[in-house]
């Protein structure tokens, strides 16, 4: 109770602070925030995206790192991404849910929660950027990266469940911080220290990622879309990014500080609906232009291997596709392992199978639909300004359904909101891992989180995207490195489970038992 009252007080203090921001400077707040943050953001991005030239294109090392890991996992687990696809579906459908455990977190719920953190602006704005810069061919590499990324998620989420913390009060929390520290310590005494270092590094980057891609990028892109439907340059809101930021920060603040879970609960129910509307509209447009589909598909295939007019040729196309896929589905980044860890199961590997669906739905399905709509409607052309992001996707939908930008705006804002809620949770978990759990550490993190919403809405896209990418991708270094050491653990879990599964030793329940 005490905690709750404190929470409300904090929320109030925060609101006052945010509302008083505009009065501190009479004009050009947006420009001022932008000027202050930009050099820092650019420096961070430059460091993380250390790159080397391949065929005339600067390829960031982190991208090679992620794709190499995903490919290795795919081979090491003998194409688990395809092999366990069907069984993953049975698990999500609830065939193996024990009725006596009803009321606990199911595989479906864990997947849905993790998905609402990843399905977001990456699928709408990120794809537009990839297709603009890399041409239709980028779609091909995006799909490939999505398929490979499934194996990365499988490994991460299995480990997330295996090494989660179950506290005496009945709450659970897990994620790379725990599997890096506990898992590596379990492997050998020598690795104990490395595990700790990796866990701390991960937590630091995760906090950064929660301010970057999980926050500023979302705020920025949803603001751009709101401006564009309310009249673009001439919109009353056009130079009032800070105002939009303050409103969004206030709403997020109500949820994360005020503890108004109702808002989060409502959002978590509307977001899947918006996703269905978005996908249906995309499919409808594809269907309306069905005669264009073969041409679009051939543009995707041929563009993937022979890129004319794209900076860096084929390597440039591949880079754009991989980059946006990785940013959208976060495979190898480690964030999803935090969300998946709450599931009720005593076989960690089952959550790994379920997690295969995350990159599949996110990248292979949703991103591909966005890309097809952009290509089919011809909204894509190389001269389009790539910093337009979500505006390009909006224009693509508008060309077939004139009023759709309004629906898209609602979807974009809601996706951004739910992604922020998820990331504020991931970031907070990492933050409390670093600084311990107390009312003050909690409040400091949450205030910073809200502050970055305002910053993100005020900055220009270029520096926001670079900074967001940088912080999110940085998480992949400690995460993937640690995961390499833990592969035998996952292998053992998988082999034991898979032989039980093949031998029919796993109990099915309910309707599934009758079907079988």
């Amino acid at each position: 109770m005490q905690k709750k009252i404190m929470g409300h007080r904090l929320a109030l203090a925060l609101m006052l602070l945010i509302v008083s921001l505009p009065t501190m400077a009479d004009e050009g707040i947006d420009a001022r925030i932008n000027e202050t943050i930009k050099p820092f953001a650019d420096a961070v991005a430059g460091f993380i995206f250390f790159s080397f030239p391949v065929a005339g294109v600067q390829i960031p090392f982190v991208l090679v790192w992620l794709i190499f890991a995903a490919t290795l996992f795919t081979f090491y687990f003998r194409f688990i991404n395809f092999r366990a696809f069907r069984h993953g579906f049975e698990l999500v459908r609830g065939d193996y849910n024990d009725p006596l455990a009803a009321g606990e977190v199911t595989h479906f719920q864990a997947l849905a929660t993790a998905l609402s953190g990843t399905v977001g602006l990456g699928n709408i704005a990120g794809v537009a950027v990839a297709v603009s810069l890399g041409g239709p061919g980028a779609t091909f590499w995006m799909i490939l990266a999505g398929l490979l990324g499934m194996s990365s998620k499988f490994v991460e989420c299995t480990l997330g469940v295996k090494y989660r913390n179950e506290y005496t009060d009945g709450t659970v929390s897990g994620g790379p911080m725990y599997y890096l520290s506990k898992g590596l310590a379990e492997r050998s005494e020598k690795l104990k220290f490395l595990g700790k270092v990796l866990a701390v590094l991960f937590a630091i980057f995760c906090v950064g990622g929660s301010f970057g891609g999980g926050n500023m990028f979302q705020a920025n892109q949803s603001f751009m879309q709101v401006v564009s439907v309310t009249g673009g340059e001439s919109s009353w809101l056009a130079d009032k990014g800070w105002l939009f930021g303050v409103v969004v920060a206030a709403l997020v603040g109500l949820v994360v500080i005020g503890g108004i879970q109702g808002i989060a609960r409502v959002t978590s129910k509307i977001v899947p609906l918006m996703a269905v509307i978005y996908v249906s509209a995309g499919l409808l447009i594809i269907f309306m232009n069905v005669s264009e589909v073969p041409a679009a598909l051939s543009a995707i295939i041929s563009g993937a291997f022979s890129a004319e007019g794209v900076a860096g040729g084929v390597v440039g196309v591949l880079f754009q596709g991989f980059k946006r896929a990785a940013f959208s589905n976060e495979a190898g980044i480690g964030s999803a392992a935090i969300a998946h860890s709450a599931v009720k199961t005593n076989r960690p590997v089952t959550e790994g199978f379920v997690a295969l669906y995350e990159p599949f739905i996110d990248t292979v399905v949703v991103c591909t639909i966005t890309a097809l709509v952009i290509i089919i409607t011809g909204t894509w052309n190389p001269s389009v300004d790539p910093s337009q992001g979500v505006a390009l996707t909006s224009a693509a939908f508008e060309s077939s359904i004139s009023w759709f930008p309004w629906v898209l705006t609602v979807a974009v804002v809601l996706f951004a909101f739910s992604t922020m809620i998820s990331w504020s949770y991931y970031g907070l978990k990492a933050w409390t891992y670093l600084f311990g759990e107390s009312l003050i550490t909690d409040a400091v993190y949450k205030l910073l989180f809200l502050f970055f919403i305002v910053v993100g809405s005020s900055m220009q896209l270029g520096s926001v995207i670079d900074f967001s990418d940088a912080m999110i991708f940085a998480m992949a270094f400690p995460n993937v490195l640690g995961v390499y050491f833990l592969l035998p653990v996952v292998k053992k879990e998988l082999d034991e489970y898979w032989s039980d599964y093949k031998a029919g030793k796993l109990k099915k329940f309910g309707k599934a038992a009758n079907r079988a």
Partner: protein
Amino acid sequence: MSKVLLVGVDCSSCSDRALAYATDRADASKAQLIVVHVIDWSPFSFNTPQENEERHKRREAELERARTEIIEPVVSELRAKSIFARGVIRHGHPAETLCAVAEEFGATNVIIGKTGSSRIRTQLFGSVANTLVQISKIPVTVVP
């Protein structure tokens, strides 16, 4: 083997009438009475990460509350009337879970109250009684 009856209870007054009816029936036929409370829950809901983290804790609290506030008072009252009663608490879809529990205990009759909501409400959201009547494999008695 003695006869088994099942009665669904929630905390509203209409389940009091269903309970009274079930008590009479159980008393008359010397049947065992299974008192079931279902906590409405779906495995396919969309939750926030925070909700998932606390889910196990909440579930324990929900079960505890149902046990102390609903099931235990009812069962001890029934036992005082020397009826062989047993309490069951489950999470799930109310009608489906009642059916599953009935099957599990080999009940021959399910007795429940009805909420008496308006026709339009029932049309839109369905009612436990309606659904139960549709899906149950054993006779259902709906007590108004």
